[in-house]
């Protein structure tokens, strides 16, 4: 039997009293790369946010077992420390905290021990290099004045430094030019070098997927998984769109 890392059953969630997810089932095994595709408003980002524990969303039913424990009972920071990571679509600007200090604080919280500055700097420099980011980014305030592409790279930098067991990438490719998508993909490849790392890529375009070895594709339409399949589904969606999955009456 495959090694289940994430097991979602019947997940329902709403925002501002409106139900967005109507019962989602999804399983991700260790080491797998999953893709969630779907039209705008289908609930893709809601799913990511609910898994991470965004307080703006309310879970109304279902269960999420992550690494053998119920995720929904954990606080946001406990989820992160348990090995879950989500890259934000629009990462927030936090003045007065440098990217470097932020990542170091986060890594120390995640591992529960202090790391030597020298060791930390060394691995940070290596990851900055993978992402073709200038070292000066490390001393800049977290996301403050970063361009859209820089913010996305900073998210992937955090991913690499935190080395979670499951990363959810929420529309990480949106708004990026071809070169930036390539750089970000290189970062994701670096993350996937660790064989047991799992990935959920939320996207509505296939550009970023061509560089990834996809195990499973889930099509999310109107708050439900409407179809599942292998990487071949990506080509079909590229060609035909989501129309055939939409079972709602016109």
């Amino acid at each position, binding site marked *: 039997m495959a090694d289940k890392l994430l097991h979602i059953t019947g997940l329902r969630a709403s925002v501002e009293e409106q139900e967005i997810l109507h019962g989602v089932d999804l399983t991700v095994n260790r080491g797998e790369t999953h893709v969630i595709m779907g039209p705008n408003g289908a609930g893709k980002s809601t799913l990511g946010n609910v898994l*991470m*524990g*965004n*307080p*703006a969303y309310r*879970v109304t039913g279902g269960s999420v077992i992550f690494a053998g424990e119920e995720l*929904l*009972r*954990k*606080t*946001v*920071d*406990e*989820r*992160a*420390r348990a090995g879950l*990571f*989500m890259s*934000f679509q629009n*990462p*927030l600007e*936090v*003045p*007065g*905290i440098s990217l470097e200090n*932020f*990542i170091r*604080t*986060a890594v120390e*919280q*995640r591992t529960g021990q202090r790391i030597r500055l020298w060791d930390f700097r060394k691995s940070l420099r290596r990851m900055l290099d993978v992402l073709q980011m200038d070292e000066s980014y490390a001393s800049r*305030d977290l996301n403050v004045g970063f361009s859209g592409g820089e913010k996305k790279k900073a998210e992937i930098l*955090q991913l690499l430094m*935190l080395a979670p067991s499951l990363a959810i990438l929420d529309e990480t490719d949106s708004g990026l030019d071809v070169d930036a998508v390539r750089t970000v993909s290189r970062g994701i490849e670096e993350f996937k070098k660790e064989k047991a790392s799992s990935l959920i890529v939320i996207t509505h375009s296939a550009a970023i997927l061509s560089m990834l070895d996809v195990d499973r594709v889930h099509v999310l339409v109107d708050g439900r998984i409407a179809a599942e399949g292998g990487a071949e589904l990506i080509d079909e969606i590229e060609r035909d769109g989501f129309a055939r999955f939409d079972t709602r009456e016109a």
Partner: protein
Amino acid sequence: MAGEKTIVADVDRSFYDFRYEEKDAFRVAEGLTPAIVEQISREKNDPDWMRAFRLRSLEIYNRSVMPDWGPSIEGLDMENIVTYVRPNTRMSAAWEDVPEDIKSTFERLGIPQAERESLAGVGAQYDSELVYHNVREEVAAQGVVYTDLESALRGPYADVIRERFMKLVPPTDHKFAALHGAVWSGGSFVYVPPGVEVEIPLQSYFRLNAPGAGQFEHTLIIVDEGARLHFIEGCSAPKYNVANLHAGCVELYVGKNALLRYSTIENWSKNMYNLNTKRAKVEAGGKVEWVSGSFGSHVSYLYPMSVLAGRGARAEFTGVTFAGAGQNLDTGCKIVHNAPDTSSYVNTRSISKSGGVSTFRSAVVVTERAENSKSAVSCQSLMIDSDSRSDTIPAMDIRTDKADVGHEAKIGRISGDAVFYLMSRGISEEEARALIVSGFAENVSKELPLEYAVEMNNLIRIEMKGAIG
């Protein structure tokens, strides 16, 4: 969100609330009379002019009215304030000679360590007398004088002090300036000769220990032409039920083309009335830089003033004020442009939490003589919860058309999205909030030497977490 919500509890200042049994060598009767003032003067072996000055100040004190325009100071009963408490020791130049209980107080606050790390000299005032005073040899070798004010009054700089003592802040300024003039005790005198650059900061640390004791230290700093100095003042006091009063006075003389940075982290206990008066006079081409962090006290009135007296003189004020439960902190600054081509830059942050009130009050005066002067004032406020209050009261008095004066104010709250974002990286809610608030106050912390920036961030953490491990 699943899980328990963190309670951002009331401030627990217990870390700073350690204290020791009082062993006063000498203590005056409560209340204030000419006899008491004379007794203080005798005990201090004042020169005659100083005794006369004290008595004159007492008269002014007795006929001046209490301020009625700021936070209430009704809890203050001068009849019950013991104005003078001297610890049971003589001034000492070696740390080892300082009595054990006093020493451990300072050691808990990290003072000797800080000195060993990077500071040029430490003057630590325990209640009213300096108990420890030391200037590193190389600083003294540059001709820099750093001593307690009382012995300086009888030393080679006696005349210099007489010319300047309470000339920037005269006893007629307000009731508590008059009180200060009458009962001042302890404090520092610094003189930096022309052209001398003091590379490492000088620091002093004030601490009140006796219940009901007022602290009236006087700091007089002269940075002569072309010289440079960074002076750091740190303050804290343990907590008592009796109201404590702090009415210190700081007078800074910044010479032509000289630079003085004056940094303060005040962390008085929450029953303290902090009515401190600070003023700088800056000559042509000189610059004063104030860096100010106000965390403690029950009520503060604190508005360091810079008088730009010579052409091209400059002032910068960078401040942060954190008002928690039961605190009403009225802070800000005052700038007087009284010469052409002068400039001032004010950048402050205020934080209020758990019903705390924080008011930013500023005054910018540009006189007719101050053509081509520039002033920019920016203040930002952060309210941690809906019980707290934040006010901004900027005043401007511009008497020339040829001046460029700007003011900017912003008020905000901690964004829930930002807290979620930081937590999603494994940082606890408390820590996330503390990080955001520390980041907000970074304008000040980045201007402080590392040990002080760390202490300030720890204070923010204590305030935000409500308890420390």
